């Protein structure tokens, strides 16, 4: 530990000296100036000043001049800058979500996420003093579980079909078809769900309201399906052909090869696909917003997915975000924070799982 602490600064100074000796003074001045202009621009923009335009113009002028004089250096600097901006956007999103949700955290404390009583007054009860996200978190959990039950087995089956079973010609039709399915806007799914699925359940199954968790969950599951198929199929097709051929050469059938060689080898990739799909389902907004009834509460018993309650973290933000203020707005931001971190955990886990699979297939483990 101490070694690293001592080594770190030394290595950095050495690299800085290296860089200094390889780069012209003018180029270094350009980098510095660009940095200053950008910082200034961001600061002014952050403060909402109308003078933001001045540092932006300065930045453009510096880059323009630098591009003519030291093109290679300028290009390298610009690409570095774009990378920083990408990371900065994520950092900004996180910090603004946290910042805006602080008031409601201060007011409610952990009750924000755990309060379950009194059930009727969890959202704006006590004269706008009580804001609790618990009913919405339960709603998100229910729709996500239903969607996963629909999408995970079907998605894996679809991936196995495309990568292991389908003849080339069929694959060339099915694969773009699945991708297209991912591209159909969620509001369209929601419209169909609203006019057909909701009506069907209401008339045939006599649900108490038009719209319930079950219908929304099924629709979200259909929407999360293509994500799972695409990622899992990618994972299955990266399993080296030699592994499959080896198994086939031993006299196994194709299904035995798929079941005992390909699927286990691609297991991490397939599960990362499922995780991504769950993330998609959790963050899905529009279909749920138009299909659910926007009544907040806990279904009793918990498995009553046909009941009248219907609100998830995403739908409450979309439905009320347009004209909320004060603590309510802050509570919506807190909902965004919960949503963001749950999805972030899922996607980062799936990324690490994928890295592990890459390593494994390259034989480093």
């Amino acid at each position, binding site marked *: 530990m101490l070694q690293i602490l001592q080594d770190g600064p030394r290595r950095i100074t050495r690299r800085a000296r290296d860089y200094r000796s390889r780069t012209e003074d003018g180029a270094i001045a350009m980098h510095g100036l660009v940095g200053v202009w950008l910082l200034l621009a961001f600061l002014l923009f952050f403060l909402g000043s109308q003078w933001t335009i001045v540092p932006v113009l300065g930045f453009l002028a510096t880059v323009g001049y630098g591009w003519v004089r030291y093109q*290679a250096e300028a290009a390298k600097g610009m690409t570095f800058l774009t990378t920083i901006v990408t990371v900065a956007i994520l950092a900004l999103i996180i910090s603004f979500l946290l910042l805006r949700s602080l008031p409601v955290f201060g007011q409610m404390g952990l009750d924000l996420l755990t309060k379950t009583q009194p059930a009727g007054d969890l959202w704006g009860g006590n004269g706008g003093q009580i804001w609790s996200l618990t009913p919405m978190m339960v709603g998100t959990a229910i729709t996500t579980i239903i969607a996963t039950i629909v999408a995970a087995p079907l998605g894996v089956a679809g991936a196995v079909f495309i990568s292991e079973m389908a003849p080339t010609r069929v694959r060339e039709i099915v694969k773009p078809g699945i991708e297209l399915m991912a591209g*159909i806007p969620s509001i*369209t799914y929601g419209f169909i769900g609203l006019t057909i699925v909701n009506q069907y359940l209401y008339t045939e199954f006599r649900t108490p309201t038009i719209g319930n968790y*079950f219908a929304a969950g099924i629709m979200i599951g259909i929407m999360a399906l293509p994500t799972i198929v695409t990622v899992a199929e990618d994972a299955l097709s990266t399993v080296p052909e030699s592994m499959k051929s080896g198994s086939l050469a031993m006299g196994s059938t194709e299904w035995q090869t798929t079941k005992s060689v390909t699927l286990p080898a691609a297991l991490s990739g397939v599960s990362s696909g499922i995780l991504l799909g769950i993330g998609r389902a959790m963050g899905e907004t529009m279909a749920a917003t138009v299909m659910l009834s926007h009544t907040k509460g806990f279904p009793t018993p918990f498995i009553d997915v046909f009941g009248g309650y219907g609100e998830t973290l995403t739908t409450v933000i979309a439905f009320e975000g347009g004209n909320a203020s004060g603590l309510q707005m802050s509570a919506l931001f807190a909902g965004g924070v919960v949503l*963001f971190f749950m999805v972030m955990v899922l996607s980062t886990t799936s*990324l690490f799982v994928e890295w592990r699979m890459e390593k494994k297939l390259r034989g480093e483990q």
Partner: protein
Amino acid sequence: MSNVRKTALHSGESTTSELAAYGVLGVSFAAFVASWALIFQWIDETATFGGLSVLQLLGLCLLVAAGGLVAIGVVSRLGALDTTPSNTAGVTVGVVFGLLWSVLGALLATTFLGGGTVLWIPAALVFGAAGTVASVLPREDIGSTVPVAVILALLGGAIALGRINAGWTWEPAWSSAVFPGSELVPVVVIFGSLLGAWSGAKAREGFGAQGREAGAFALIGTVVFGMLAVLLLLIGFIVVNGLETVLTGAALFDGTLSLFGVSLPWVSFPFLTNVTGGLFVEIPGVLPATIGTLWLVFGAVLFAVPLGVGAAVFLTEYAERGRFTQVVEVATNGLWSTPSIVFGLFGLAFLVPRISGGNSVLVGQLVLGFMLLPLVLITSREAILAVPDEYRDASAALGVTKWQTIRSVVVPAAMPGTITGVILGVGRIAGETAPLLLVFGGAPYPSNTPNILTSFQLTPNPPFVTNEALLSPASALPYQLYSTITAGVFPKDIFTNQQFGWGTALVLLLVVIGLYAIGVGSRLYFRRKLHHE
């Protein structure tokens, strides 16, 4: 690996067992399709054929399939059939059948033992164990047919005898909904026929490793077929419902096109060329929304493509693989998976107060740009990584500097992949609605199109250039669809809200599908070009 102990010599003519298995498969498939038709109400559930209702016929199908399965299993076990069964049906089959039997046990207990709340648990356990034992212990030809046949026979019998008919309802205590027989029977038959098809396909290949392969392929094939059918149905449904609205008042040579002062007959397409609201519009259209979507996409691309491609170049060409690139990768991944509504919240908190003070086109463009950025970054990074190192080495060997190599060799070679990625990404953000609700949307039925090109103005005060249209709210196709769904009554008599919604949905779908088709097409084109060169 292989657990085939003996193999059958396949003769030219099909054997009796194969015929029986084909029968089971055919009956299962017919029941499967008919059940879906019932659910979609293409067949009326009260219809009768030859004195039997449709539901009873479905029950008969299950009975026939069960009978066929038992016959094949028993005859094969007696050695009269040319099959190659394994010693056991396997753990997977045991688990699946065990679960099914436990469900059966629970149902029987609650039905016949007076709905005892406690009794169904031991009944489920006992039946589950029995089902597992019955499928795992005997030889495969019995184990994979008889347990499932018993279930099919019980269900089929109950349905065929009319015990469960269209008017029958199941009202479990835990559910607010009731399940009528008219809808429950098709669902049950769908699962039953899938089971029948699985076992039937196994039997057709004479069990054993071959049989399991056939069974798995039949099951997965049916499921995927169903999935694609759902996709086609969705698209077909939108087209059928929206076409009438979209084509209202359209004619081939009704309109005029002025070219250099000459009026030519031209296609008239009021739904695409009219504004939505306003006093003097006879046939309301989606022109403002379409133009709004185009502006949104244009702005997002302008913002995201330079950033994404630049970052991809830096990550692949300049940066060394290490902690920093990993951080960027995690950040990109995070951006990619961030729910769209969260982007909307961010735009609302950070951009709206600093740029326009209210919903505006510019903020919408930026927010969609944030969403497009990770997609562009990921795809162009992959495209740059796919450029062979020989290109870079050859260029370096000629004494060309690194930046010039990147500019004239790497980026052009990676362009096709990047373009494809951008188009696919645009297809995704063009249909994005959630963030637009918070930062972009304006009047539900706009009466004018955003006039962005002509409203640039120079001012003496900073920021020196202003654009009123860019800073005001507008409409976009997905937003238009949402506001049509949620608004109460359509302002004109010519359409109802739902009709207008279907029309908007169709236009939106066409835009998105068009973008996808271009993206997928260009990917195929570039791939072919790459492989044939």
